[in-house]
C-alpha cells in the first residue's frame, strides 16, 4: 500500500465518521419532531458543534493531501469529491438543527394536526443521505443516479405538504404560526434531499470523471 493510500483511507474514514454523525442528527431530529421530545432536540443542537469541528479537520487534511501528494486521476477526483461533500454534510447537520429548533417551538403548543406527508418526506431525505454515503464509499455511480432520481418524489411531497398546511392557515389564523413552522420543516427536509443529490453528483464525478451537475443527466 502506498503511503498516499493510507492518507486517502484516513480521509475516507473521517468523512464516514462525519457522515455517521450527520445521519444520527437527521434520525434524532425526526424523533424530536414526531415524538415531540424537546430533550432529544436539545441533544441534536448540542451535537452540531462536533460536526462543525469535523468539517474543519477534514478540510485541513484535504488541503495537506493536495499540498504534499499532488494527487492525480482517481486520487485527485477523490480529494475533490471530499472537499465538495464535506460542506454538504455540514449543511445537512445544520438543517437537522433547524428542524429541532422548529420542533422545540411546536412542542410549546398543542399539535396542529397528525403529521402524514412530513414524516414520509423526512424518511426519504434520510434514506437519500444514507444511500449517498453508501454510493460514495462504494464509488457506485449507478446507486448515485438512483438517489438523484428520488429528488422528484421529494419535490412532490414538499409541495403537497405545503398546500395542505395552507388550508389550515386559511381556515383559522390561529393555525398560522404552527403551519408556517411545519412548512419550514418540510423545506428543511427538501434541502437535506438536495444536499444528498449534490453528494451523489460528486460520486458520479468520482467514479466516472463526468460532471453531471447543472445538466439533465441523472436529474
Amino acid at each position, binding site marked *: 500500500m*502506498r503511503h*498516499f493510500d493510507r492518507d486517502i483511507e484516513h480521509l475516507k474514514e473521517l468523512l464516514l465518521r462525519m457522515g455517521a454523525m450527520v445521519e444520527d442528527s437527521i434520525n434524532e431530529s425526526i424523533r424530536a419532531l414526531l415524538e415531540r421530545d424537546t430533550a432529544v432536540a436539545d441533544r441534536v443542537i448540542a451535537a452540531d458543534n462536533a460536526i462543525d469541528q469535523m468539517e474543519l479537520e477534514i478540510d485541513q487534511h484535504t488541503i495537506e493531501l493536495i499540498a504534499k501528494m*499532488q*494527487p*492525480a*486521476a*482517481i*486520487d*485527485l*477526483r477523490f480529494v475533490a469529491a471530499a472537499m465538495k461533500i464535506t460542506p454538504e454534510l455540514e449543511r445537512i447537520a445544520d438543517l437537522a438543527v433547524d428542524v429541532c429548533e422548529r420542533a422545540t417551538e411546536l412542542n410549546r403548543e398543542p399539535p396542529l394536526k397528525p403529521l402524514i406527508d412530513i414524516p414520509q418526506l423526512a424518511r426519504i431525505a434520510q434514506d437519500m443521505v444514507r444511500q449517498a454515503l453508501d454510493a460514495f464509499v462504494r464509488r457506485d455511480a449507478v446507486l448515485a443516479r438512483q438517489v438523484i432520481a428520488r429528488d422528484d418524489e421529494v419535490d412532490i411531497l414538499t409541495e403537497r405538504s405545503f398546500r395542505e398546511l395552507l388550508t389550515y392557515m386559511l381556515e383559522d389564523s390561529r393555525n398560522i404560526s404552527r403551519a408556517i413552522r411545519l412548512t419550514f420543516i418540510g423545506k428543511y427536509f427538501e434541502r437535506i434531499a438536495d444536499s444528498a443529490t449534490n453528494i451523489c453528483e460528486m460520486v458520479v464525478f468520482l467514479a*466516472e*470523471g463526468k460532471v453531471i451537475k447543472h445538466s439533465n443527466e441523472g436529474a
Partner: protein
Amino acid sequence: MTVETRETRAARASASQDETPPGSTKIAVRDFNFYYGDHHVLHDITMEIPAKEVTAFIGPSGCGKSTFIRSINRMNDIIPGSRARGTLTLDEQDLYAPSIDVVALRRKVGMVFQKSNPFPKSVYENVAYGLRIGGVRDRRVLDELVEQSLQRAALWDEVKDRMGSSALALSGGQQQRLCIARALAVDPEVLLMDEPASALDPIATQKIEELIYELKSNYTIVIVTHNMQQAARVSDRTAFFMMGKLVEYDETNTIFMNPTEKLTEDYITGRFG
C-alpha cells in the same frame, strides 16, 4: 542601434515564423516502429503532434519515449544497427525518405538534452556557432541574432555583460537556457526537449518551464519528462508510453483528471508494478 540592424531584425522575425496554424498537425506518425539491431523498441506508434503546442511524453524508464523523441530529428541514426519502419512526417514530408537532408532536418527540429552541453567556448560563440555553420558572416547580423536568441531563451539579461566569458562558468540552469538559445538561433520550427530540467534545482526548473510556456506561441515543443507534475504543468497534450507502446494520448487535463486506460491511471497515481 542602426537602421540596418532594425531591418535585419524585422527580416529575421518574419523569417522565423512557422506558418503552420496552432493546433493543426505538425508531426504525423503512422505505425512507426524502431529497432536497435534485433531489439524492437517502438511498436506501431500512431499519433499526431499539433503545431505550437506542448506535447509531453511520459512513461517509466525504458518505455521508448527518448528513442521516440530522438526519432523525430533522426538522432538515432548515429547508433549502428538502428532502423525505422512506418512513417513519421513533418509538415507532410516523410522524415525517413532517402531524399531527406538530415542536417537541414536538425536545423528545423532543434534538440535540448537532459544534461546541458554547451561547447567549451564563450557564451557568444555558443549561440553564434550554428549561425556561422549556416553561413552567416556579417558581424552585425550575428550580434543581432545572438541577442535575439538569448532574449527568447530568457537569458539575455543575465549574460549580456559577459558574452566573452566561458559558457562553462554559467550555472546549470543558465547553461541549459544557453543550449535552448543555441537551438533557437538556427531558427527551428520544432523544439525537442529530453528531460530538460531534470538536473536543475526548483528555481532553474521553474524558469525553464516558464520559457517553454512562452516559446510555444512560436514553436512546436515536444518534451520528455520523468516529472509527472511538470508534464501536467507545461503541456497541452500528454502521451503515455510503456514498453515501447503508446498506451494513451490525450489532452493533458484528461490524462491527469480522468484517463481512459487503467495503465495510465496506475502510472500517474504512482500505483505501478
